[in-house]
Structure formats: structure tokens, C-alpha cells
């Protein structure tokens, strides 16, 4: 049962060879046994696991169980976005993305650990403590959707939902050796997602393979009256079937080759570079052409991103004031004192930093220099992509400059952590879809997992807005050719 992808499990259920109840019980047991806290021997990737059996489901997703990032509101089920300030919160409604999947026949198996309010790239900023990477328990699973990625890689859930603001689906997918897709901004309703940065947040699938990612996406997209930024997607999402890349023009951005050159910090690890180059060679063997493209402003994306996302977060997180939900500081001397101490006690260090940064960037006298400029940089980055897509069909980069890093390695220096998202943030600012697929294992001696043979490296493929079908097809063809050892980190 463990070897079945979600799509394969659906086929077996539909053929009568497997019962949905049996599958749910199997994953429920695995999730409860291996998803819990580290003291109990678990990966700490799941924060809640369903009890009992799921209701029978006859939708196209056939009752296949689903893990959902903690920040999705799920009716009556704990949803606290990895934050102490929402401890014990049980929402009175379910997020549209989850509801649509349930309507299509998915069953809620578990909630997944994450960085607090999705702010982080390692899952270490969680009130639940860090989730561990199943490839090597001394390393992070990436973030912010680290629990979702670890659960899928470890085989504790057939598939999972995450959210991506600047790379929070793609980067953990890369570090856990699975597939993660950030759709076009607006493709999936944000209703019921506890907000981080509303102009960037997007839900998306974390799955074992590209086919499963397409299937989850298919059942989540579409306009929702509860989210005015949601869009009617112009096509159906098809099952990806491409085996070749004949005629596909791939662009490699010169500016996303080496962040270390001008932007102190992260160099692309040689083992990541090697796996990326091998993937490019494979793409050419499949018929693709590869050419250099230019995204002249991409190197400024990270700066613009941290200003914009922190500014939006400072506004979005104003709602956590100890009045309507969550925890409240006790023994306050008055309303203002209650607000400020509730927020002091309830938020973790990284969330406070971003609220402070965002408040500063929006404050009188600084607005134009920071927020206003960042919005203009965003315009230039979106233009850069449009120009590049006149010459190429898709853009490829490594998903992250490095493989999964050690727990604690980047926590002391916020900017070194932020550099984890150097390759993923430009696409987020441009609102375009991007997928990360595993493209091989690192070969450097200091990054060899306990299973031997290295740690996963992710390949990011990005396309123009609404190009998801083309993107998934190209990812599918490459996935077949790469033949990544997908199940190796299962517990």
C-alpha cells in the first residue's frame, strides 16, 4: 500500500482492489506512530491526526487521505498556524481549498507542522518545535511547509497541502525529495488560509509525483466568492502525459546562477550545481533547447520580497490581539497593556522581527523608500519575466542553493536563512506558477544522508501565468527521465 502514489491508490480503489477505509486506517496508524514529537521517536511533522475512520467517499479522489498544513482552517480541528498565539483555536469553518478537496472525495488525515505564520525556511520557527527531515533527522525539512513535505517524503500521508509565499512549498519539497507546486497567484482561493502576505500567499500540492500534483491542483482551482482575488482558471488541469520535450525552449537566468557573487551569503553548492547540470543535459536529450535568459532585477527580488511580505504581515497579524480568538495575556492593567503583552507572549522571535520590519517599512517617513520602492521593483521583476517568456517557454533554476541544512545552522543569522528562498522569490513576486521536482541526490561528502548516496536536490521550473498544464507536462517528462529514488526516505 505504501508504494502506491495517490493516483495509483485511486485507481486501485476504483477497480475494487483496495478499500478507502483500509487505506485511511493504514495511513492513520503510520501518521500517529511516526508523525508525533521527537521524544516519542517521531518526525514532529504532524500536529494533529484524525481519530477513528473517515466517512465513505465516492468523489474522484476516492477517499484518499490528505495531510493539510496547520494554517488552513479546518472546522472543529485545531488550526494555529504553528503559533502559540492561536493555541487551542478550532475554526468554525473550513478553508475553500480543503473544502473543495473534501467535496472531491479527499479525507482529512492530519494537520502538518510549519513555521509560525509561514515565516521561515526551515520549520524551526514553530510553536510545536522543528519537524525533522526524514532523509536525515539531524537536518531541517525546509519551510515553511516543512511538516507537509516531511510527512509525504516519509510516507505518513499519500499527499499534502501547503502554502507558498516566497518558496514555502517549493523549497521544502526540494529538501525532502518530493514534488511541490506553487500555482499562478489567484488560481486557488485563499479563504480560510491564516494570512501571512496576502498579495503573495498561494496554496498548492506537495506530492510524491507530478501526476498527483496535477490531480490535487485540478480539484482546488477556481473562483471563490469568499476571495475577491481568486480567478476562474482558463482551462481544466489535465493529467500530465508528456514523455518528451521536443521543441520546448528552456531558459536559464544568468542572474540566478550565483547569488553569492553580489549578494553576500549563499553560493550554489557544487553538488546542487552538478545535479542541476545533469537535469539540463537530460532535458536536452529529451528534445528541449536550453538558452541563457536575463532577469536583470531578479537579484533584487529577495529585498523587495522581505519588505513587501513583512509589511503585509504586519497588517494581517494586527488581528491577533487577544480579543476574538487565541490566547490572551492575563493580569493586564488595561486594554493597551493586554494587546501588547498578548502579542509579546504569543508571537515567536521571527514573527516579531517581521512585524517590526513591516511596521517600520510602512511607517511615516520610510514608506516611499521601502514599501513604495519594493512595489516598483516588483513591477520590474514581473516585466523581466514577461520579456524572458518571449524567447523561452519555461525557466529553470535550482530550487535552492543548498540541500537540507543542519538543524540550528542558520537560525542565528536571519539573512542567511532568507537566502534559502533566493531562487523561488522572484516567481512569487511575479505571481507566476513554478514547480519543484527532485532532480537527483547531492554527492558532496558532507551532505550524505543516513541512507547513503546523498540528499535530494530540487529543480525549479517556472512558466507564465496560467501555464500550469505546460509546466506539469514538462515536469512529468523530466521526472520520468530522472528516475529519482522517491521512496527512499520512507519510515
Amino acid at each position, binding site marked *: 500500500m505504501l508504494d502506491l502514489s495517490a493516483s495509483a491508490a485511486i485507481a486501485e480503489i476504483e477497480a475494487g482492489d483496495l478499500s478507502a477505509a483500509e487505506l485511511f486506517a493504514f495511513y492513520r496508524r503510520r501518521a500517529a506512530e511516526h508523525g508525533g514529537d521527537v521524544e516519542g521517536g517521531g518526525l514532529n511533522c504532524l500536529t494533529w491526526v484524525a481519530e477513528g475512520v473517515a466517512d465513505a467517499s465516492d468523489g474522484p479522489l476516492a477517499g484518499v487521505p490528505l495531510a493539510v498544513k496547520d494554517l488552513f482552517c479546518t472546522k472543529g480541528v485545531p488550526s494555529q498556524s504553528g503559533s502559540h498565539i492561536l493555541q487551542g483555536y*478550532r475554526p468554525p469553518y473550513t478553508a475553500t481549498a480543503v473544502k473543495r478537496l473534501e467535496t472531491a472525495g479527499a479525507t482529512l488525515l492530519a494537520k502538518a507542522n510549519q513555521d509560525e505564520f509561514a515565516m521561515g525556511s526551515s520549520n524551526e520557527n514553530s510553536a510545536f518545535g522543528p519537524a525533522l527531515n526524514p532523509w536525515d533527522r539531524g537536518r531541517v525539512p525546509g519551510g515553511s511547509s516543512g511538516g507537509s513535505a516531511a510527512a509525504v517524503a516519509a510516507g505518513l500521508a499519500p499527499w499534502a497541502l501547503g502554502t507558498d509565499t516566497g518558496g514555502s512549498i517549493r523549497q521544502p519539497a526540494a529538501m525532502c525529495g518530493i514534488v511541490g507546486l506553487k500555482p499562478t497567484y489567484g488560481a486557488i482561493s485563499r479563504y480560510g488560509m491564516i494570512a501571512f502576505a496576502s*498579495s503573495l500567499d498561494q496554496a498548492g500540492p506537495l506530492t510524491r509525483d507530478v501526476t498527483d500534483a496535477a490531480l490535487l491542483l485540478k480539484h482546488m482551482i477556481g473562483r471563490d466568492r469568499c476571495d475577491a482575488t481568486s480567478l476562474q482558471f482558463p482551462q481544466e488541469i489535465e493529467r500530465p502525459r508528456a514523455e518528451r520535450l521536443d521543441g520546448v525552449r528552456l531558459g536559464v537566468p544568468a542572474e540566478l546562477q550565483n547569488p553569492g557573487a553580489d549578494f553576500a551569503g549563499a553560493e550554489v553548492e557544487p553538488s546542487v550545481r552538478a545535479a542541476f547540470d545533469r537535469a539540463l543535459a537530460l532535458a536536452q536529450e529529451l528534445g528541449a533547447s536550453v538558452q541563457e535568459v536575463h532577469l536583470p532585477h531578479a537579484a533584487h527580488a529577495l*529585498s523587495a520580497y522581505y519588505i513587501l511580505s513583512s509589511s503585509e504581515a504586519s497588517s494581517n497579524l494586527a488581528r491577533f490581539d487577544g480579543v476574538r480568538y487565541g490566547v490572551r495575556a492575563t493580569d493586564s492593567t488595561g*486594554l493597551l497593556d493586554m494587546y501588547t503583552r498578548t502579542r509579546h507572549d504569543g508571537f515567536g522571535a521571527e514573527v516579531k522581527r517581521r512585524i*517590526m520590519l513591516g511596521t*517600520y517599512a510602512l511607517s511615516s517617513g520610510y514608506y516611499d523608500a521601502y514599501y513604495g*520602492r519594493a512595489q516598483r521593483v516588483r*513591477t520590474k521583476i514581473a516585466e523581466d519575466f514577461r520579456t524572458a517568456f518571449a524567447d523561452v517557454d519555461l525557466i529553470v533554476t535550482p530550487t535552492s542553493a543548498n540541500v537540507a541544512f543542519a538543524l540550528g545552522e542558520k537560525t542565528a543569522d536571519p*539573512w542567511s536563512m532568507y537566502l534559502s528562498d533566493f531562487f523561488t522569490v522572484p516567481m512569487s513576486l511575479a505571481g507566476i506558477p513554478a514547480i519543484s521536482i527532485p532532480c537527483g541526490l547531492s554527492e558532496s561528502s558532507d551532505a550524505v544522508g543516513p541512507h547513503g548516496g546523498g540528499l535530494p536536490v530540487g529543480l525549479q521550473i517556472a512558466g507564465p501565468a496560467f501555464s500550469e498544464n505546460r509546466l506539469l507536462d514538462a515536469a512529468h517528462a523530466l521526472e520520468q527521465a530522472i528516475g529519482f529514488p522517491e521512496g527512499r526516505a520512507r519510515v
Partner: protein
Amino acid sequence: MIERDEVLHVARLARLALSDEEIEPMARELSAVLDHVAKIGELSLDDVAPTLHVVEVTGALRPDEPRPSLPREVAFEQAPEVGDEGFLVPSPQA
């Protein structure tokens, strides 16, 4: 480097209490991040329009028709403290 007074001013705007020992590290960490993001100050952006929304949305308005919202007792269930008529908070006058 951001000054201590400036950190306290921003914290007040953000309705965030900071203990004495939290102020200096916050000043240092904010300054470090601001040093990096200040690089966008080097770009020439005078004729560039700001991006307010990244994907074009049309017809986002819905008809203004009344419909049921969350029942009050359901909304109250998650609150730290409620009275008969609403959410209870400490006195603003205190």
C-alpha cells in the same frame, strides 16, 4: 543602525511589548536586514508604476445581497472572554 528609541516607537505602532533585554537584539537584527534590503535604493525606478496586484482581476465585485453570516454564539466560542452581548476586554481607561 536603528536606535533604541526608534525600535520602541515601531514596537508601539505594532502594539508589541518588548522587554529591556529584547530591545538591543531587535535593533541589531532589524538593522542587519535593512542593510540588505536597502540595496533596492540603488535602482532607478522613477518612471516605474508600483504593482498593487500581480494578476489582472476583473469583475471582482459581487452583488451586495444580504446573506447569513457566522452566528454570534459560534463566533464567541473561540474568544478568551465573552459577556452576554459581546467580547469582553479590559477597560481602555485603566
